[in-house]
């Protein structure tokens, strides 16, 4: 069986203008999409609300997950607590953070009600579900509650904090957790608990450290790949490969963002895989060009690119074909996060294959004209 007949010659470079144009538009759109509408960061990057619940009737994490997804929460984490029957930790990316102006209003109201002398410190948790107050004297809990409610906060309870020499109070606000429990009760009825064992705001898994490390390693990877390509091939090839690689990651991310799919740590792994695939694919085409440059002396680089791309076309199609084959199994058979990663990989492989031909090779030709035209004339 042969998909591409031997001796096939396609003038790829003729189409590079329109195709590169389309890809450039896609890349620009992707870049814009990063700012508007902006990525839909999942709990890995944005943090969220964590609720621990003890169900009164038997249930499974799958049942809870599907109930929550039905209620509109995207990709909730549902974790069973071992050793405690029907106790679950639920993490959702929703937070009930208060807008800045409301936070200011609450601060002002509390200061007015308690007096500047008494109110030492007022902290609102980033999850917007808890207000911690440090006072220099004991205060009336009801007074604090009324002050907060006057400022528009939906207060559930105000409690003094035990075990502290300085009077401290904690006000719990109605937030994501209460809504979540109400929705669970609507679906589970009596089996769902009336209140949570614990509600907490959780920070992102992927904090600054991971972000810094990721950016740093990406920059180093680009530098080393360019060095390697410049050394093994020559300088003309280096920018094309790296630009194609970044282009593929950018467009995949862009499509992800435009579809408002959740961006999480798995997405990052998918993007890294796509970049690896992209540079791999590009190098194979480059390798043929390099080989033909030695073997075929009387052709222009443009023709050499066409010949080499045509010669490797069969391999390009088979390799991306098999890879897409294995990824599509995950897309059609998998669920949730797995489906998302398969989707990203599928798009990335398609774009990566195109970009080797229509981005990497034309840039190499461009570099050739810029770097060598003066030498030739």
């Amino acid at each position, binding site marked *: 069986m042969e998909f591409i007949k031997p001796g096939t010659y396609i003038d790829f470079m003729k189409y590079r203008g329109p195709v590169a144009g389309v890809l450039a538009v896609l890349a620009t759109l992707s870049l814009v999409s990063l700012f508007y509408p902006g990525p839909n960061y999942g709990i890995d990057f944005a943090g969220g609300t964590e609720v621990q619940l003890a169900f009164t009737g038997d249930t499974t994490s799958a049942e809870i997950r599907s109930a929550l997804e039905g209620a509109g929460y995207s990709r909730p984490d549902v974790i069973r607590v071992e050793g405690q029957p029907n106790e679950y930790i639920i993490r959702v990316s929703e937070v009930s953070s208060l807008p800045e102006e409301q936070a200011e209003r609450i601060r002002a109201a509390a200061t007015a009600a308690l007096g500047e002398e008494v109110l030492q410190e007022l902290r609102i948790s980033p999850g917007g579900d808890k207000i911690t107050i440090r006072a220099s004297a004991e205060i009336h809990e009801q007074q604090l509650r009324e002050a907060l409610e006057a400022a528009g906060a939906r207060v559930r309870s105000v409690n003094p904090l035990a075990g502290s020499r300085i009077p401290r109070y904690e006000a719990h606000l109605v937030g994501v957790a209460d809504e979540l429990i109400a929705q669970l009760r609507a679906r589970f009825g009596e089996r769902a608990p009336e209140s949570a064992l614990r509600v907490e705001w959780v920070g992102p*898994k992927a904090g600054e450290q991971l972000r810094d490390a*990721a950016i740093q390693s990406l920059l180093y990877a680009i530098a080393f790949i360019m060095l390697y390509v410049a050394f093994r091939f020559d300088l003309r090839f280096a920018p094309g490969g790296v630009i194609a690689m970044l282009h593929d990651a950018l467009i995949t991310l862009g499509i992800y963002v435009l579809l408002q799919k959740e961006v999480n740590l798995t997405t990052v792994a998918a993007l890294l895989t796509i970049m690896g695939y992209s540079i791999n694919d590009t190098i194979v085409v480059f390798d043929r060009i390099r080989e033909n440059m030695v073997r075929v002396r009387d052709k222009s680089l443009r023709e050499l690119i066409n010949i080499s791309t045509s010669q490797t076309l*069969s391999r390009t199609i088979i390799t991306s074909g098999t890879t897409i*084959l294995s990824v599509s199994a995950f897309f059609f058979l998998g669920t949730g996060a797995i489906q998302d990663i398969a989707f990203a990989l599928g798009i990335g492989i398609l774009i990566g294959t195109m970009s080797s031909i229509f981005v990497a090779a034309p840039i190499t030709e461009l570099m050739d004209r810029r770097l060598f035209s003066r030498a030739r004339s």
Partner: protein
Amino acid sequence: MDRGWYFRLVIVIGAAVLGFLALWPSLDRWLPCPDIVKETFDNQINPGLDIKGGLRLMYEVEVNEYIRDRRDRLAEQVQRQCGVLIGVIPEEEVDDIDKATLEEIRERCKVERVDKDGGAVRAIRITFSTQEDAEKLTKTWVRDYFRDLRVASGVGDLVVDLHMREEQLSNMRETAVRQSERTITNRIDNLGVLEPTVIARPNEGDIIIEVPGAQESSFERIKSIISRTAQLQFQIVDDESDSRGAFTDPPEGIYLNADSQTYAEAFGEDASDRLRSYIATLSVPDDHELVIGRQDPDPERGGEGWRTYYLHRVAEVTGEDLDDAAVGFDPQSGSPEVDFTMNTRGASRMADLTGRSIGKRMAIVLDDRVESAPVIQGQIGARGRITLGAYLDRSELLQEAKDLVVVLQAGALPAPLRPANEQLIGPTLGQDSVRKGAAAALWGIVLVLVFMAVYYQTAGLVADVMVLLNLLLLLGTMSGIGATLTLPGVAAIALTVGMAVDANVLITERIREELRLGKSPRSAVEQGFSRAYSSVLDSQLTTAIAGIVLWQFGTGPIKGFATMLLIGIATSLFTGTFCSKVLFDWIVRGLRVQRLRVG
């Protein structure tokens, strides 16, 4: 077939057998694994948090300890800067004051650490001996030299209190939690491919860690590695001063030893705790401290032995200046120890300290415990070692040495951690999702195998054998290093299979081209391989470069990803080029096929 071919065949079969043996402990549930294999390959594939669940730990960062520590360092600086203020030393010499001058400064203005409101307020108190000196201190002076401090009372008085600024306190809380997170992540990364989740919550002052797996024993080890402060200090033992007066009323079970030096000792159960609580009641001069350390067991009193050391408080060299640490062995006894190297700053400080302390003893203090206190024989530079004492058996000592290396390399925690909560948690993904993911992986691989066989025929079957061998080696390596497998990881493996056929595709396409030119199967295989090598090698090496960089600079999940990528590249290079050549050679030379069917 020539001898070279048989030699290559042995390598291929050897690799396959090794791969299987390494994987076997992970398959124990389905295919009982003999103990001898389990002992040789003591790791297995670790199912990730999403597939199997694990242990959820919550630690509170003892932020107040961090703040006290910062305050203590500031107090030291304030003392020195006071020397400039009252005109004892010029500004340039503030970092280089000798002991006598420091005493002189202390006579005229004494700097003390004061805790108010039960430790809620950390303050620094300056007591001037003359009004003339006292009037030199102004608010501007404090602001100019110490941005973290503010004057709380009595400018111009003989006694001035400085407090830490409120806004600095919340910054410090944040720093303490963030630094702890960083250190914990590094430590767990040093342990291998574990893929834990580490979440820091600076506002609450705590850190949540979720470790995948289910083995009780490995949890214990991880817990001890996470919560160890790993504060390493080198302090000189003061054997000259008379510390006899410090040891007042020793309770029952604590003995005073009063030969050449005075120290207290205790033996048997809880000896270290009893001794520690006893010395907490004693008062020693501000520039000294009492620290406990192990000592030879006493046959009469029984059990393990502990004693006190009387140390100069100032640690001129600390673990901050550590460059690297490794497990080493004592040349004489062969017992495990930890060898370390200092960075340039640490080495010059160490040389300076040991150079002027020859004949004295240097205590190596780790987390408020003297590990050893050898007599300084000569000047020591960048290298040193920590002996662990001979009180544990050899395998325990080795484990202790390994763990110590992990924590020393990752650096000290900025503040102690207090375990707040501990729960075993189930998987984040339902059984259903895991089953579907596994089915998808199986289907993905089968589809690729079938396609290759149909499209490339004989060459496709060779590729299929290589894909399966690749899978075996990949999983075997993962099992051998105890890598964590998450569901996205399963997808990545299936993708690796898709990508690993690339080498086979490249080679087969080349063989096709050569056959079309009318070459014999044998020479087509030779030519095809030799021409495809550069493509295969260049494309895989470029990806490997990215993998190495990610592994070097990445943390947590990025590092895990890079490890898998690198293993995948190595196994697919091996199977795609080396192993497939052995099989092809057998087909064209052993079977002497007239026509090689490549589709």
